Every structure is written in C-alpha cells, then in structure tokens.
C-alpha cells in the first residue's frame, strides 16, 4: 500500500506559483535566478512522489482532491492523476528545471519577471493535466497563454511582438469556441465533471457541435494542419526556454484535450469526424515534413517537424484503441523530450554564434564533437530510430492506426522516410562538410561545458530508458487507457440502445407510408 500524501497534487501545482511570488519579492537577480531553479527542482522531486507512491494497475484517478468551488453550478476544485496524465505532469516538472537553468545561463534581461512568468506557466501547465473539472481545466488552459505571451513578446527575437500577438489571438480564438462548448455541455448534462462526462450519454446533436468546438480549440493548440501557422512564428521568435516549454509541454495540452475531452466525452461525434481528423493528421505528417525539409532556419525546421510529429500523436488518439492511445500518451512525452532537446541544442548553438541559419554552419563535427554527437542522438530520437524513445511511440501508434484504418498507417509510415530526410539534411548542413566560416572552427567555437551537459545528458539518458524499457511507462499508462476505452464502448452501446427504438420507429413509419 503506497503512502498517501494529502494535497500532493495541489502542492505540485501551486509550488511554482508560490515560487513566482517569492521570486518577485526577493531582491537581487542572483537570488531570483537560483530561487526559480530551486522551485522547479523541488517541484520535480515532489512530483516524483507520484511515481514512487503510484498504485500499480489501478486505472482510475489517484491522489484525488475534490472540493466545492462554486456550489450553485457544481463547479469544483477537483484534481486527480491517472496513467494518461501522470507522465505529462512528470514531463512538465522534468523539463522546467532544464528550461530555467538554460535561462539562468543565457538570459539577463528583466530576470525577475521572466522567472516569475516561467513559474506561473508551470503552474498553469500542471493544472491543465490535473484538472478534473471543466471550468478548472479551462482556467488553467487559458492561464497558460498569458505567461507564454509575455515570454515571447518581451524576451523574443526581432519579430517577437507579431509572433506573440498571433500566438495569443489564434489560440485565444480557439478558446472562445471552447467556452461555448463548455456551456453547451453543461446545459445538456448539468455537470462539469470530466470523468463523469466520459460516462454520460450525450445527445448526438449536442455531441456534434460541442465536439467541433472542442476539436477546433485543441486543433489550434496541437497544432493540427491547417491551423499550424502560428507555431513556426512563435518558435522562431520565442526565447530558447520558451521554445522548449512550448514544444515540450504546451502543444500537448491540445492533444491531451482531445484525449481527455473531445474523443471520450463525445464518442459518436468523434467517430463520425475521426477520418477527417485522421486525414488532417496525415497531411500534417507529410506536409510538415516537406516544409521542414526546405527550411533554412533550424528553429523553424524543428517547428515544422513538430507539426509532423504531433500528427502521429493525433493519429493514435483518433484510432481510439489500446495500442494507438497508449502509444500516443507515450509519444507526447517522447516528443516533449526530443523536441525540447532539439530546441535546447539549437539554443546552445545560437548563444555561441547568434545565428540559426543552416547555411552559416558546416563542419561542426570537426570543431565541437561532443555537441555534434549529442545533437545526432537527439535528431535520431526525433527521427524514430528504434532503441530510442521516438520509435516506441511511433510504432505503437502506427499499429493502432493500422487497426483503425490501414491507409493512414501507410501514410504515417511514409512520414518516417521524410523525417530521416529533413533531420539528416539539417545535420549534413550543420555538422558535416568542411568548415567554411572561421567562426565555426574549434578555436572560436567552444564545445559543451559541464553546465550545459547537465541539461542535455539527462534528456539523452531518458531517450534510452524509454526506448529500451517502455514498459516502465506502459505499465502505468495502459490500465487507465483501457478503462477509458471500456467506458467509451459502454457509453456508445448505451447510446445506440437509446437511439435504436427511435430508429426502428422511423423505419416503421417509413414502410407504412409506402
């Protein structure tokens, strides 16, 4: 019997917020920096208690906290974690110290507000993954927008204001739809309880509209083709730590939204629109990869690769079978780690050379071998090399997708070719070939130091751990996924049973009319 810790989830969620307040209050940049790092590290350690105290094999929510927030409408402050959200929470708490430490090394401007915003962001992201109440979910979902908006707008690159506003307004437009959807759901079911909604039969007409609204909101966030154009702008302009978090965690809020809300709460609508979404996901995989292939800026290459990779996650979610969904959950983590690591590597290079243009590099393998070797491992993880993390997720997703509709698995598998192509093209231009620019030679370009390795190495080790021992994760993911799928099937059957008499009646009427 695992030890239960009261308010553990609240502690994990609001520790960063507390840290943000303290960071704003303490004087001195140094103190602010290290306090912020300490906060994220403590949050990470505390979040590991979720892993150590996990009740193996249990499908339902664990560490649940439930308090009335606003009684008249039944809005509750309800937090809980299951196999689907566990690793997203851990991903967040794991990536944050890395992002913060990178910022400590390389960000100088207005460090107090910067760190406070980072910590605020962490609270919002964790909250999204833990919330069991729709309103609470929405509040956290929206709250995550603001810190990211400021991080891009204040600490970003040349075109930061445009990118920040675009990021904000685009996602925000999606959120506006979500408000409407939440209200529709509430009026038709009378509850904001996400888990309860999953087992509630919702009338088909309501399902369709609510699903579309949610789907659109999450499609922007994910981003699903063709709602992706804010992403490259945001990534290219965002500071490195912002990119790491944006790609690593924020995008998962979209796919998580699909998985937790849109797909299981509106099963019939989801089934109806599934093929359409799958087409968009496949287009995203191939289109994202082709556009990535042509990019000259490494950051925008990685951004487009995210569009492709999130397409895989979407496919698994749409497939709504055990292999697809479990694979997707793991792939969300994988993408967070791999793409987070890619942005980290790009950031490390940018801080040295102040350029991200592929053509400005060449021959790095001769001058900075440690950096380049690690970059290759990260790229291979992203390209889905078996033995590393990405493969496990992609392969199981394709298994699930094949069971769903074979053609999508074929298209997804074609994306694997392109992934190798664009990643190796980037590698070829950066690392191989001769050193043409003296700024790239070993006397001017320093290889990674210990401080930087501290950020990169844990990520790389995790690639191997997940790639070789994915069952450490699947063991916890699977029960929750299977339970969700069972509930979904039961709800679908109940719904058909309800609609059956009406259908039969209609048939009788029709035959009699003839």
């Amino acid at each position, binding site marked *: 019997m695992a030890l239960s810790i009261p308010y553990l989830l609240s502690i994990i969620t609001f520790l960063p917020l507390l840290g943000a307040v303290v960071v704003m209050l303490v004087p001195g940049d140094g103190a602010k920096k290290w306090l912020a790092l300490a906060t994220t590290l403590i949050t990470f350690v505390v979040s590991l208690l979720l892993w150590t105290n996990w009740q193996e094999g249990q499908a339902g929510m664990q560490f649940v906290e439930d308090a009335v927030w606003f009684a008249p409408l039944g809005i509750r402050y309800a937090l809980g974690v299951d196999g689907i959200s566990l690793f997203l929470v851990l991903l967040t708490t794991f990536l944050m110290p890395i992002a913060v430490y990178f910022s400590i090394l390389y960000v100088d401007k207005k460090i107090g507000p910067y760190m406070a915003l980072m910590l605020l962001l962490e609270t919002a992201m964790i909250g999204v993954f833990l919330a069991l109440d729709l309103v609470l979910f929405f509040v956290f979902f929206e709250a995550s*927008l603001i810190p990211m908006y400021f991080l891009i707008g204040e600490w970003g690159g040349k075109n930061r204001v445009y990118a920040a506003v675009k990021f904000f*307004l685009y996602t*925000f437009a999606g959120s506006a739809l979500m408000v409407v959807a939440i209200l529709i759901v509430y009026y038709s079911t009378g509850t904001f309880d996400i888990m309860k909604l999953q087992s509630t039969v919702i009338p088909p007409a309501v399902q369709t509209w609510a699903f579309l609204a949610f789907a659109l909101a999450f499609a922007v966030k994910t981003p699903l083709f063709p709602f992706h154009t804010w992403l490259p702008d945001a990534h290219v302009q965002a500071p490195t730590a912002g990119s790491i978090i944006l790609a690593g965690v924020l995008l998962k809020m979209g796919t998580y939204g699909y998985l937790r809300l849109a797909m299981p709460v509106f099963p019939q609508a989801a089934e109806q629109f599934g093929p359409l979404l799958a087409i968009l996901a496949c287009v995203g995989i191939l289109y994202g990869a*082709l556009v990535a292939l042509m990019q000259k800026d490494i950051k925008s290459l990685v951004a487009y690769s995210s569009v492709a990779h999130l397409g895989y996650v979407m496919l698994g979610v749409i497939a709504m079978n055990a292999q697809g969904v479990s*694979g997707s959950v793991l792939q969300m983590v994988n993408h967070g780690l791999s793409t987070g690591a890619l942005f980290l590597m790009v950031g490390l290079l940018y801080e040295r050379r102040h350029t991200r243009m592929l053509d400005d590099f060449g021959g790095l393998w001769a001058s900075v071998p440690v950096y380049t070797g690690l970059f290759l491992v990260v790229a291979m993880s992203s390209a889905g090399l078996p033995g590393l993390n990405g493969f496990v997720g992609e*392969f199981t997703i394709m298994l699930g997708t094949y069971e769903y509709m074979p053609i999508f698995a074929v298209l997804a598998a074609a994306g694997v070719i392109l992934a190798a192509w664009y990643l190796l093209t980037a590698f070829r231009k950066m690392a*191989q070939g*001769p050193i043409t620019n003296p700024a790239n030679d070993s006397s001017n370009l320093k290889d990674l130091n210990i401080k930087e390795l501290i950020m990169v190495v844990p990520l790389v080790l995790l690639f191997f751990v997940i790639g070789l*021992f994915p*069952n450490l994760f699947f063991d916890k993911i699977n029960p929750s996924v299977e339970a969700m799928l069972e509930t979904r099937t039961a709800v679908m059957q109940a719904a058909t049973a309800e609609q059956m008499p009406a259908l039969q009646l209609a048939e009788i009427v029709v035959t009699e009319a003839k």
Partner: protein
Amino acid sequence: MLDSVWLLFAFPALGALIILFAGRWMSQKVVGWVASAAVLGAFLVAAGLYLSLVGLPAEERSVTVTWWDWMTIGSFHVPAAVLIDPLSAVMALVVTGVGFLIHVYSIGYMDHEKRYQRYFFYLNFFILAMLVLVMSNNFVGMFVGWEGVGLASFLLIGFWFDKKDDLYGWYADCGKKAFIVNRVGDFGMILAMIMVWSTVGTLVFTELPEAVHALAPATATIICLLLLLGAAGKSAQIPLYVWLPDAMAGPTPVSALIHAATMVTAGVYMIIRTNMLWHMSVPASEVAAWIGMLTALLAATIAMVQTDLKKVLAYSTISQLGYMVAAAGMAAYGAALFHLVTHAFFKALLFLAAGSVMHATDGILDMNRLGGLKTKMPTTYRTFVVGAAALAGIPLLSGFFSKDAILVAALDHNILLYVVGAVTALLTAIYSFRAVFLTFHGEPKDKHIYDHAHESPSVMTIPLWILAFLSIVGGVINLPFVLTLDHWLEPVIGEHHEAALVIELLGITLSIVIAVFGFLMARALYLRHEKWAERLAQPFTALRSPAQHGWYVDDFYHAFVVKPIKAVGAWFAGFFDPKVIDGAVNGVGTVMLDAGEVVRKLQNGAIPTYALSIFLGVVAVLLYFLFVA
C-alpha cells in the same frame, strides 16, 4: 553456455563505451586493439554458442533467452529476447569472425587517421547492432539492429565528412543518401511488421510457423512484398541499390565489413528468417527470385566497365547479393546462406586487398592508373587473386560451390532464371579477372604511383591470408551431396529440396565451363589483347557508356523522385504555407483588427494590457453566463 549469450553483446558494447569515454587518452594502437579484443571476445562467445548448439539434439537447437518485456500494450507484446538457433549461430560467427579480422586490419589501415577514436567506436557499435539484428527473436528487435547498422553505416560512409572528390562528391552526402534510401526500405519493414502483428497476432519468429496458417494468401503476398522492399533497401536490390556504390566513400575496411560481408546481407538473412511467411506466398517468392536475379545481372553489367576498383567490387557485391536474394526467393535458403558466408569471406578479402592497394597508392584505385603491382605487393596480389577466383567461381574454391548451389536451384526452378544467372556468372568471371589484370598485371600506367607502392604491414596482411584461406576452403561447409550447412539449418528452414541428379551434374558442368571461359575471355581481353576476344566484345561497345553511368538510374531517381519532392516542398514552404494558409489567418486577423481599431485607440496601446484585458473580459463573460444560469 547458452545462458551467457548476453556476453556476446556485452563485449562490443563495453568496447564501444570504453572507446567513447576513455578513447581520447589512448593511442591509436591501444584503441584499435581494445576494439579488436572486444570483437574477439564476442567471436569466442559465438563459437561457444555454436558448439553448445552442436551438442544438442537437432530438434532442440532453438533456444530463446528472454531478458525483459520490451513493449506491452493490450494484446501487443514484444519481448527483448534472443534466439539461438542454427541460423543465428552461423550469422553471429560470420559477423564476429570476419568483423574481428577487419578490426585488426583497420589498426594498420587507419594508422594515419586522426579520428581513430570515432572510427573504432563506430565499428564496435556496428558489431553490437549487427548482433542485435541477427540474434533477436522477433521482428521489432531485429528492426532495432536493422536501423542500428544503418546508423553505423551512415556514420562510417560519411566518416570523412569534410572530404569531396570527383568520384563520390561530398562523402557526407553519400552517407545521407544511404540512410534515406534505406529508410524507404524501412517503410516496407514497418508496414510489414504491423501487418504481421495485425493478422497473425505475434511478431516472435518462433511463434510464426504456427501462427501463419491463419494468413490469407493475398495478405501474405502483400506482407512479403513489403519485406522485399526492406530487403531491397538493406541488401541493395532493385529498385533501392543505388546507395551502395556511393557507400564506397567510406574507409575501405568499412566497405569490407559493412558493405560487403555483413550488413548488406541482412536483407537475405531476414528473408531466410521469415521463410514461414514466404512459404505462404508463391507470387512474392517469385518476385523475390526475379528481383534478385535481375539485380545480379544489372549490377554485373555495370561492374564490367567500372574503372575504379572499389566500384567494381561494389557492383559485384550488389550482383552477388542478387544471387542470394534470388536463392531465397526460390526457397533455396541453404544455398542463400551458403553464398552469404562464402561471399563474406572472399568479398571481405577483395575489399581488404583493394584497401591494401589504396594504402600503397595514397588512396588511388583508378585502374587506368594502376597496373603491374604484383611484384611490388606480392601478398596483396596473391590474396586478391584468390578472392577474385572465388568470386569468379573457379572450381573448388568456396565461391564455386556456393554459386553453383544457387544456379542449380535456378536450373531446377525456372530455365529463364537460370539463363539470367548463368550470363551473370559469365560476366562475374570476366570482371573479376579484369580487375586482377588491370590492377596487378601489365605495365604500370602511372610511374609515380608504381614507384611509391609498397607491401602493407603484417597487421594488414595476416587478415588477408586468413581470409584467403577461408575463401579457398570455405566451400567445405556445404559441399554438393554432403550439404552440411543445409542439414544444419533444417530446424529453421525445413528439409533441403533435392534437385534431380542430372540437373545437379548439368549445373556443375556448366558452372565449370562458364568460369573457365570467363577467365580465358578476361585474359584474352585485358592481358593479351587477343583479336578473337576483342571481336567478340565488339558488339557490346555501344553499351559501354550507359553501363559506366550505371544505366542512368541515379539520374532517373534524381529527376523523377528527388527533384519533384523538393519542388513540392519548396512550393509548400515558399508559397502555400506563408501565402495561402497563413495569408488566410492574417487576413482574418486584419479584418478583426480593423474593426477593433476604434476600440483599440481607447486602450493605452500597450499590447500586454490589451491581451490581458481580453482575457479578463472572457473570464468575466464566462462568470456572467454561469451566474445568470
């Protein structure tokens, strides 16, 4: 002994880790010997495994050692486990045995190389990945090794990533091409694995023979054709062979180890390993037989006219791999593996001997500039001749028996296939000796090169001698009518299909005639320049130029595959994405902003405040709705 199979992997893994982390403080020699020792250790383990298997009764020679559960989701399950059986034992012996010799040779060959640490790290990593490939007891585990060796190949082809020459262009591009073309094959592998699991419910090789009976023939055909695509990638068959000639940009020992003896045979190994699937589909097997045989012929025609020695050997490798794939397609799995083993010996030998020439000529292998080296490099010459003779199928050498086994199978299977195979055999004999004569005989064509040529050190020549010995006697593992290898493999591939005695004898006779005639032809053409031979070759001169350019297949792919894809990508990236999709987004945005312009002026103009107020507004609206309701 069988339980200590983990040692097989531990040795190269440890070697790789030592070199990676401690190599920078070691000298070139020490690093080389550490790497070699690691592979020697693995070879001894492999030998132990082999002997343990021999000690078991035939029906018990299939031992699975499970390490851990790798992936489990619902009914999908893949273990991390190895399968020790006659097939994997032979493969492990070849990989570690030939691998060890090439490691040792590399110590001499790479003695002036500054990046020796990387080189030997890659080499040990390759051995590890290759062992994972051949030892895994399931498809997905095999695929880990499959792509792992691909990565090693990429790293080693582009080992001189900052080098460029007329023959290869940028070496780094050759490595990239190899990886991407192989990924096309992997596309087939991934889909095949998915389909196998989805239709028969397991990916474990030992469970497949039972499970495949549920397979519909049409599904089996699709699966096998997808596997064939995978094999075509890794084993350089039509239509994906184009990466292998460029792969010769890598250091020559790498060409010997990866691009001749071991990695490129993975496709053949895979077909043999999955023979239960191929039994379910006659059409797919036929396609494999034809793809293999036509690849053999096509590559042989190109090898005839190459002037770079390594390119001759590269096309020859493609050609010989074609034989193996063809044999596998004809269900002559024993013959396929037989040729795989003997080819590993004599082709590794040929490459290493060519490397020895390169070592002496400062990297020059253009046969138009060589010649007369036999007195300067007697050991290299003698061993090269042994390799070439084995490749040519000169009677009693290993290559003779193994190629004959395939040709007999073809004669028994389909006379057309046999004719293609026989013509290829003739071309093989001619180009093998052409290479010998142009490189080692005649007058030196480049005085400077000739004067500076010297025999290689013994760390390089000893592996040559050992491989030469194996190339001569290697045939004994599966002599016709004795069939040791075929019987050994029975637990994996079932009983050997005996061809009628008359076909066996006819095949052998023709094989002898072809090889001898090929040799005489080459001697007449390239050594003595005799009239009759030149007259005989006359009609083919028109084919010379297109064959030299590889029948323009690369240009075709470039024009009709690579360029169109890039054009589409460029259009997406340059126009469609920014103008159409993002244009629409910004269009909507502009309209909105124009409409909001009046309101916006009421604000203080600071974007953050603006954004924040939107958020607060929405929250207010939300709360309002909630309260009113």
